[in-house]
């Protein structure tokens, strides 16, 4: 266990951003922009993922959520540089994660400054490349934009999974399950009945978090509130059925708590993308992160709440969560023992 933790924390979970995917819109296509773009792709911090052709595409690429930064060169970049000794470049960053946005723009500025110095070298009049930055979605770089979706994922998972994880197993321990089994109650009814109170509790939780983030943290809800609520309820159901599965499968409350803590809480914190960017993790961890329900929910909340996207941009994530819900619930009912041993 400690070995695993050291390895994970030491290597995988860093706030350093490497190989961030960026898009380039080169309206100038001259010698200066080409070499500057080459600088970007040679840097270990950036991967040039897309070459765009029009400004409209920039917005679309950000909506897809793959790219973190867009570099935009205006027309006549090289000519301006040669003749006026100064030119402009625009950096647009996805600031729904303000830390990553900050880091990336700093790296980009450094690369541009480097290039500027290298061409200035033996000239009397220095070249200046002005960068104009835009923080998309979160112009003030507020931390709340990042942690509210993360906290929502964590609180819902905590309440739902940990509390339901002990419900069925508690009855096994207390002996009430023995009496309940000798009754016409069907496993499906028992399992689903266990989830209902926590679902109601979680809906209250979701509303409280949203009210707090809007009125206290001044975070706007850019997308549809109904969609956000429905997605949150979907995530709650996934967490509940996961908790029920744990509860149905184990024999003691202690084991149930341990599993939900170690096997659920830690991965959720580490692999949901809320604390540490998933893009920088080694492939095995990135693969594992796909089975963490909170990762998908985190993407959904960020998309709906901060980026203001609709269902057509998050249907994939929604589908993954729905699949998980069906899987966990079926397993929980199957694992529910109709006898004592």
């Amino acid at each position, binding site marked *: 266990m400690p070995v695993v933790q050291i390895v994970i924390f030491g290597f995988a979970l860093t706030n350093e951003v490497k190989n961030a995917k960026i898009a380039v819109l080169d309206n100038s296509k001259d010698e200066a922009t080409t070499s500057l773009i080459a600088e970007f792709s040679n840097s270990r911090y950036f991967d040039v993922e897309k070459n765009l052709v029009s400004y409209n595409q920039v917005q679309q690429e950000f909506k897809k959520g793959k790219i973190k930064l867009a570099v935009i060169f205006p027309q006549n970049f090289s000519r301006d540089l040669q003749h006026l000794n100064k030119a402009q470049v625009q950096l647009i960053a996805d600031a729904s994660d303000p830390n990553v946005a900050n880091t990336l723009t700093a790296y980009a500025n450094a690369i541009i400054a480097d290039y500027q110095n290298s061409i200035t070298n033996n000239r009397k009049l220095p070249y200046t490349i002005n960068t104009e930055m835009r923080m998309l979605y979160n112009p003030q770089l507020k931390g709340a934009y990042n942690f509210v979706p993360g906290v929502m994922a964590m609180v819902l998972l905590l309440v739902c999974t940990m509390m339901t994880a002990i419900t069925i197993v508690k009855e096994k321990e*207390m*002996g*009430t399950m023995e*009496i309940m*089994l*000798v*009754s016409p109650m069907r496993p499906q009814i028992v399992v689903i009945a266990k989830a209902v109170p926590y679902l109601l509790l979680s809906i209250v939780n979701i509303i409280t978090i949203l009210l707090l983030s809007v009125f206290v943290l001044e975070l706007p809800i850019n997308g549809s509130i109904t969609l956000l609520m429905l997605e949150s309820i979907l995530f709650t159901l996934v967490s509940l059925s996961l908790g029920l599965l744990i509860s149905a499968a184990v024999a003691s409350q202690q084991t149930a708590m341990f599993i939900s803590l170690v096997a659920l809480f830690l991965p959720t914190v580490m692999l949901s993308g809320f604390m540490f960017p998933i893009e920088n993790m080694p492939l095995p961890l990135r693969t594992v992160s796909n089975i963490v329900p909170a990762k998908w929910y985190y993407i959904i909340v960020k998309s709906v709440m901060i980026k203001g996207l609709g269902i057509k941009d998050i249907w994939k994530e929604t589908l993954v969560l729905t699949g998980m819900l069906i899987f966990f619930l079926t397993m929980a009912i199957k694992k529910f023992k*109709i*006898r*004592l041993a």
Partner: protein
Amino acid sequence: MQAIIIENIIKTYGKSKDVMALNNISFNVQKGELFGIIGPDGAGKTSLFRILTTLLLADSGKATVDGFDVVKAYKQIRKIVGYMSGRFSLYPDLSVEENLNFFATIFNTSIKENYDLIKDIYVQIEPFKNRKAGQLSGGMKQKLALSCALIHRPSVLFLDEPTTGVDAVSRKEFWEMLKGLKQQGITILVSTPYMDEADLCDKVALMQNGKILSIDTPGGIINNFSNPLWAVKSSQMFHLLNDITKQDFVKDVYPFGEFHHVVMKDKSGETLLKNFVQMHQEDKMQIKELKPNIEDCFIALMKN
């Protein structure tokens, strides 16, 4: 008609199946009978109850409850039996009334519908109906548990050690209630470690180490005890036990309350015992002839 039929049931525990909980058990219970299973802790009573209430699967053998197979027709059995497990198994944080309501609901019935059946029992705990079940006294808990087990008017009632840990007065009351239920035509299978409760059953099975030692009416079991039984007492009880064990006429001797019970090999032992008393006059020895009780029978069967 038979309410419960048990044929060659074997149940083992452990990975290598080395713990024999039930060793080839077979017996029948008549409809409407109050049947007692008497045996010490670890005799296999709870395992047998759990197999009959469909909570455990036997390794081999067959059993039916009211004509339903305990393995194949477990769903039907769960609808018609009432079960009170060996330890307190109600919801401690629900009140008395809520518990009763809960069990009525999961059996698709209501307190009102079957109130006449539990009335005699429930009136005793009704003054505490708003108290949490976990805060009731031992006897009250058992009365509530019995009410909950009866709320759906079961045709067979399984009571696993209902009087263990309950005071003498409550135990007596509890058995009175069982007699009342018997009048209603409910078959009752009850287990207990207390030998004195055997007399209250229509029929008893004496169990020990997963085996049935004897099945008969309480009177029948006592009649089968043919050896003369005497009680002896002196001021030197420990020496007396040692001395009397060595006598040839003695089949068995064991401490029993303030007396030692002496089981003779045959009638002739009686005179020999009297002679033995004559020889030890300094110890103020007292003797008297006894009618055996179930416990004497159990000890005799156990040592055979």
